[in-house]
């Protein structure tokens, strides 16, 4: 199996045209986008955004995300305590959906991206195919973490009944949204072709 890189070719990331790389920075002959053979400093960017996401994830879980006022009495809830309330009320499917989107997916993305970066760094790439699939799962799951943010945004707008019941937004929503955005940018910064690059040498030897 030959790769574009071995032939001195590069794929434009916007229009997918195969271009001959005449310089490190190549202007695509079709769509005139400037690109590199591999995303430059891909691992550093991925790691940096992932760490930023991890830092934001801490206050996102410590501060309240939603404050419910019923008859003037405030009741603050964090993401985790909100899930606890659902379990108390027996709303298990809801608890599972929110727990998956708000806790499991961000943690899986953060750990997963660090794992992929370390795999490329360590040079152990025996199962590049599985790693690529894993990367795709991470990329696909990313936006679903925004679920809780959309829920809070909607609840705030709908529950607006003066003294009887209103809902206020908690500061955690800012940090949580940043976590989601940062993990999405981290996933985009990762270049999955790095998982395959060294494999070619072993293929050629066999």
């Amino acid at each position, binding site marked *: *199996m*030959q*790769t*574009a890189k*071995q*032939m001195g*070719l590069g*794929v434009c990331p*916007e*229009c*997918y045209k*195969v*271009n*001959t790389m*005449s310089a490190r920075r190549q202007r695509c*002959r*079709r*769509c*005139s*986008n400037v690109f590199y053979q591999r995303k430059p400093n891909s691992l550093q960017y991925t790691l940096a955004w992932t760490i930023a996401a991890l830092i934001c994830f801490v206050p996102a879980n410590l501060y309240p995300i939603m404050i419910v006022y019923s008859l003037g009495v405030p009741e603050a809830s964090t993401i985790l305590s909100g899930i606890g309330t659902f379990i108390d009320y027996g*709303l298990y*499917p*809801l608890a599972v*959906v*929110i727990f998956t989107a708000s806790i499991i997916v961000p943690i899986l993305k953060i750990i997963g991206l660090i794992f992929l970066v370390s795999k490329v760094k360590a040079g152990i790439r025996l199962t*590049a*195919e599985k790693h*690529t699939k894993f990367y795709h799962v991470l990329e696909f799951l*990313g*936006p679903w973490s*925004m*679920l809780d*943010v*959309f*829920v809070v*945004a*909607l*609840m*705030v*707008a*709908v*529950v*607006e*009944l*003066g003294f*009887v*019941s209103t809902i*206020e*937004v908690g500061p955690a*929503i*800012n940090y949580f*949204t940043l976590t989601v*955005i940062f993990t*999405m940018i981290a996933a*985009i910064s990762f270049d*999955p*072709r790095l*998982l*395959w*690059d060294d494999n070619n040498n072993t293929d050629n030897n066999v």
Partner: protein
Amino acid sequence: MLADEAREIDLIACQQCDALYNEPGLATGQKAECGRCGATLFEHKVNSIERTFALSIAGLTLLTPAIILPIMGITLAGQYHEASLLDSIRQLIAKGYFLIATLVFMFAIAVPAVRLMGAFYISYCFKFNKINPFLLNFFRAYHQLDSWSMLNVFLLGIIVSMYKLLDDTKLSVDYGLLAFVLLLICSTMVSVTLDQHHIWQKLEKECVDANG
């Protein structure tokens, strides 16, 4: 330079693992997959331009009702209150959460709207043979919006909030939800029917080769 162009003309490389292939000729409805990592290389889609044109018009028509019409309302202690997508953004601004308001606006309104308009403009130009070099830059920009459209996540958000509110209030569903669901269907279908490979090839033939 000429030798370079001749060399790259029939080649296609996998986006995910960089494997290099000679471009296979595909019949309508067929799909080429990478033999090494299994990713889709490209597809030859059925009636791509016509379908995209129709779906983007439908989507653009549904956009306004989906944003303005109330999605749901609640009744509690004799009081009734309803809210639309726009109301939820207005509330976030009123409460000082500008970052979240901006992002909700981007992911749930602006990006889907711009994508629909983009798909409409591209399919219109292709359908009525108004292909011009500007489309090269336009379609390149269009491509970058792909990962930031979150209509589907917002719909799940609506369902979750309904489930939550159902517990202690009387909930009513409004036409906004219907419009939103249909908008989501149109928007998803547009990304399925739009044949990027075909569009790029045609743009290259009409705009790049004509100049060079």
